């Protein structure tokens, strides 16, 4: 379906520029940074999920062998509540500070309480045992609906539900309501109504690289931070705010990043490492272990979602009602709002009412995870769409086609959709051979669809031309999945030069122009736009240089095949980029071009997944035996990495559906804090993941790009569940569909 006839480079599949270093072990990730004289710091974490901190005595630790400094929240400024932007979501800087080091109370098991810097990690760990913390245990609340109860243990005495009681604190941090039409009238006109409640567990992003940072504070008060992050500028902003520093005194240099999926858009270690470096005058390195990652960094929300859906006999949706409750963990800020905005976004429904609830409880504060909030909402809605299609005796894709949003449809969350590719994606799924392939015994097929907004935000790019005509393109956007290859392809296409002449870099906060986080599927879209704009500026500059050389008007110079040409002046031989670069000193100095922008018009992404499973009725084990992910990319710049996003997102969704969940005991202590028990999909769990790239260009982007990274995790939960329903004759409403849970469902039939 991909057409490359108009482009030389866009849509091709060259080897990624950072590839050789990554297959030889040379690429430096977060934990690979070392500095002379470096100290190692470790964190003391709470043994309780909810307790008052009565006192902390660090004196014995401070005098222990090899220890140079100890830190608690008392070493950080006491911040007032203040909301700030943190990439895709807002953050309260006071909450951020209190999550980095607990202040007054610990709110989850593993909450950081103190940190020790010592000459070795081993000595730092030993000194943690010498810190005496006196706690007063408090009742623990772990489940969303328990936390919403009137008599629930309260996490924050100063948190009140907006629009609720002003006297009685509450764990409900925020509510949301999205109405349209008249649902009573709508349900009255419905021929079929289905209402069900769905639950999903807390799951972790599961990046293989634990969080790591090395920080060094100079005597001039200038801090250097090296870390693995999706956003160097957000690390800078958060660290500055939490430590009361000016952003101009902090330089953040990104390492290669070993997976993020949204979760590396906040800070846990960086302010601690900077402060300990300031206290000791030496560089400080901090690396989490896997247990710390699972216990204390943001997973994504558990959810309780109830949906009532009404349709008429002719297969049209007429009314829908949704209640979406998301657990935020210890501090407000679950992805409840995007969940509410997504839940009905794919369909034209004349009457609906959506209510959302953001609920704090004694688990780690959630962090963004790929299309935050959408997979849970889609699990509920798409499961009901499948059930409704069965009741209507309609093909599930046909049923969706009857109700799908298209250009001009008013999205459930407000705006009118511009050109979108949901219908084209559904048609491609329906036509795919997988959809009509025969199934065997104990096998079943399910479909699910997914929607994600995608975002634009701010990006900058600079292109420097070398004297040979090769170029360096610099951005500040972390590359988590191959975006440097995309940036190089944009430059190759625009300058009409070979991809091999282009070196794309992700630079630090002092050398790159500002870029918002790599999140919201925005980097190839928005930073790509800045790169294209900078390329166009560079071409204009080079045409000017050629015009000057030739003594003609710039309007008589065009750019073709990597060279300036003067179509009307037959005596002028083309000036190649290398020639222009070589003579730049005589025509105005070095060739460099920049661009920055706030990208508008991130095109919405739609995906349709088809999943086949085989269920073992004796054990309840489910095997995915065939899987196809179909999605509108707008335009695939490097199709291999677009396919990679579809495949990776699909498999994270399969893990969410079948295996992954945080298991807590009643004290709020996570029981499965390693990769053995937090069971992510491994190679022999899976078949090949087939992909189809649909291309309905986004009119807001010069090459038609839509973000592709997040949508692929939205459809799988319902697609897998429906396949299991059809294979085993059950109706799954609760994830994960682990063998004991499925066996219980089968036995209950």
């Amino acid at each position, binding site marked *: 379906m991909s057409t490359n006839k108009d482009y030389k480079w866009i849509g091709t599949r060259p080897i990624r520029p950072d*590839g050789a270093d990554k*297959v*030889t*072990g*040379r690429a430096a990730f977060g934990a*690979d940074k070392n500095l002379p004289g470096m100290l190692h710091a470790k964190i003391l974490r709470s043994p309780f999920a909810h307790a008052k901190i009565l006192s902390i005595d660090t004196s014995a630790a401070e005098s222990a062998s090899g220890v140079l400094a100890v830190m608690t929240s008392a070493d950080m400024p006491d911040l007032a509540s203040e909301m700030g932007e943190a990439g895709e979501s807002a953050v309260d800087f006071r909450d951020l500070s209190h999550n980095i080091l607990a202040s007054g109370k610990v709110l989850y098991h593993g909450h950081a309480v103190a940190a020790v810097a010592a000459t070795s990690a081993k000595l730092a760990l030993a000194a943690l045992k010498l810190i005496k913390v006196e706690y007063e245990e408090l009742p623990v609340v772990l489940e969303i609906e328990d936390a919403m109860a009137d008599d629930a243990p309260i996490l924050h005495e100063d948190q009140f539900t907006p629009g609720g009681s002003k006297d009685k604190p509450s764990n409900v941090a925020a509510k949301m309501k999205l109405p349209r039409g008249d649902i009573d009238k709508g349900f009255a006109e419905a021929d079929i109504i289905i209402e069900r409640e769905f639950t999903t567990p807390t799951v972790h992003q599961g990046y293989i690289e634990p969080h790591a940072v090395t920080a060094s504070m100079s005597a001039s008060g200038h801090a250097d931070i090296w870390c693995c992050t999706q956003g160097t500028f957000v690390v800078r902003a958060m660290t500055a705010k939490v430590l009361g520093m000016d952003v101009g005194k902090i330089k953040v240099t990104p390492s290669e990043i070993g997976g993020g*999926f949204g979760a590396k858009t906040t800070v846990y270690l960086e302010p601690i490492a900077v402060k300990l470096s300031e206290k000791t005058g030496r560089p400080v390195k901090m690396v989490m272990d896997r247990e710390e990652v699972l216990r204390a960094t943001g997973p994504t929300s558990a959810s309780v979602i109830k949906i009532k859906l009404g349709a008429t006999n002719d297969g049209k949706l007429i009314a829908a009602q949704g209640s979406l409750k998301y657990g935020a963990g210890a501090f407000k800020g679950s992805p409840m709002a995007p969940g509410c905005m997504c839940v009905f976004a794919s369909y034209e429904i004349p009457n609906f009412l959506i209510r959302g609830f953001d609920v704090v409880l004694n688990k780690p504060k959630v962090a963004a995870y790929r299309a935050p909030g959408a997979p849970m909402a889609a699990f509920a809605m798409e499961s009901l769409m499948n059930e409704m299609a069965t009741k209507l005796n309609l093909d599930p894709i046909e049923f969706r086609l009857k109700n799908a949003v298209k250009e001009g449809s008013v999205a459930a969350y407000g705006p009118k959709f511009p050109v979108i590719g949901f219908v084209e994606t559904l048609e491609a799924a329906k036509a795919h051979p997988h959809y009509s392939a025969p199934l065997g015994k104990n096998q079943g097929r399910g479909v699910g669809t997914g929607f994600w907004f995608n975002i634009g935000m701010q990006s900058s790019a600079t292109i420097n031309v070398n004297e040979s005509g090769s170029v360096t393109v610099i951005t500040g956007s972390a590359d988590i999945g191959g975006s440097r290859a995309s940036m190089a392809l944009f430059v190759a296409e625009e300058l009409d030069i070979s991809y091999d002449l282009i070196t794309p870099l992700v630079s630090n906060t002092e050398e790159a122009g500002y870029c918002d986080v790599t999140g919201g599927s925005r980097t190839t879209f928005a930073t790509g736009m800045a790169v294209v704009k900078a390329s166009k500026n560079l071409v204009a500059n080079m045409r000017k240089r050629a015009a000057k050389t030739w003594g003609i008007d710039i309007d008589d110079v065009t750019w073709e095949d990597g060279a300036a040409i003067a179509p009307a002046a037959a005596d002028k031989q083309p000036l190649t980029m290398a020639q222009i670069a070589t003579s730049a000193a005589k025509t105005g100095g070095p060739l460099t071009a920049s661009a920055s922008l706030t990208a508008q018009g991130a095109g919405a992404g739609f995906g349709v997944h088809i999943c086949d499973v085989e269920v073992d009725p004796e054990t309840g084990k489910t095997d995915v035996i065939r899987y196809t992910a179909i999605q509108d990319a707008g335009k695939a710049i490097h199709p291999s990495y677009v396919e990679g996003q579809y495949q990776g997102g699909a498999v994270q969704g399969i893990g969410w559906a079948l295996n992954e969940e945080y298991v807590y005991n009643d004290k709020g202590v996570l029981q499965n804090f390693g990769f053995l028990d937090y069971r992510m999909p491994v*190679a*022999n769990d899976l078949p090949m993941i087939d992909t189809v790239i649909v291309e309905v260009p986004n009119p807001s982007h010069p090459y038609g790009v839509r973000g592709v990274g997040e949508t692929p995790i939205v459809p799988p939960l319902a697609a897998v569940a429906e396949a299991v329903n059809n294979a085993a004759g059950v109706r799954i409403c609760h994830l994960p569909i682990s063998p004991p849970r499925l066996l219980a469902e089968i036995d209950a039939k």
Partner: protein
Amino acid sequence: MSKTHVTTTINGDAVEYLCEVDQSLLDVLRDTLELTGTKEGCATGDCGACSVSLDGRLVCSCLVLGVEAEGKQIETIEGVANGTELHPIQQKFLENAALQCGICTPGFIVATKALLEKNPDPTEEEARYYLAGNLCRCTGYDKIIRAVLDAAAEMRGAA
């Protein structure tokens, strides 16, 4: 605690180091010898990011003590390429876009090399089972498995 002197061979080089008796081979490689191509994802033997070859046997270096390397032959990711000439497995990982973030890649390449030394012509299923101890969270394994089978074919001269 005094350190133990270890004499070993890493990627063909004779190497001596001092390590503490409870220090893992992974920590020795990364922290003492600055061979940071071998990665730590879990330190409990569950993710395979720290895969190395120890006397021809594929191991998680986080589960091996530094002192156990005495007299052994160790191969790490840094020893897979021949100078600046990539090994066919490395080349096929690049051509097949078998990496996204790349943190698991060194472990996968070391494990794939061990697989193809034992079994030059694995089926897809054999490759998937052999590599089940290596976690990748980005790719969904599809392009990794294709790269492995492609490299196997290339190395057999059948490509």
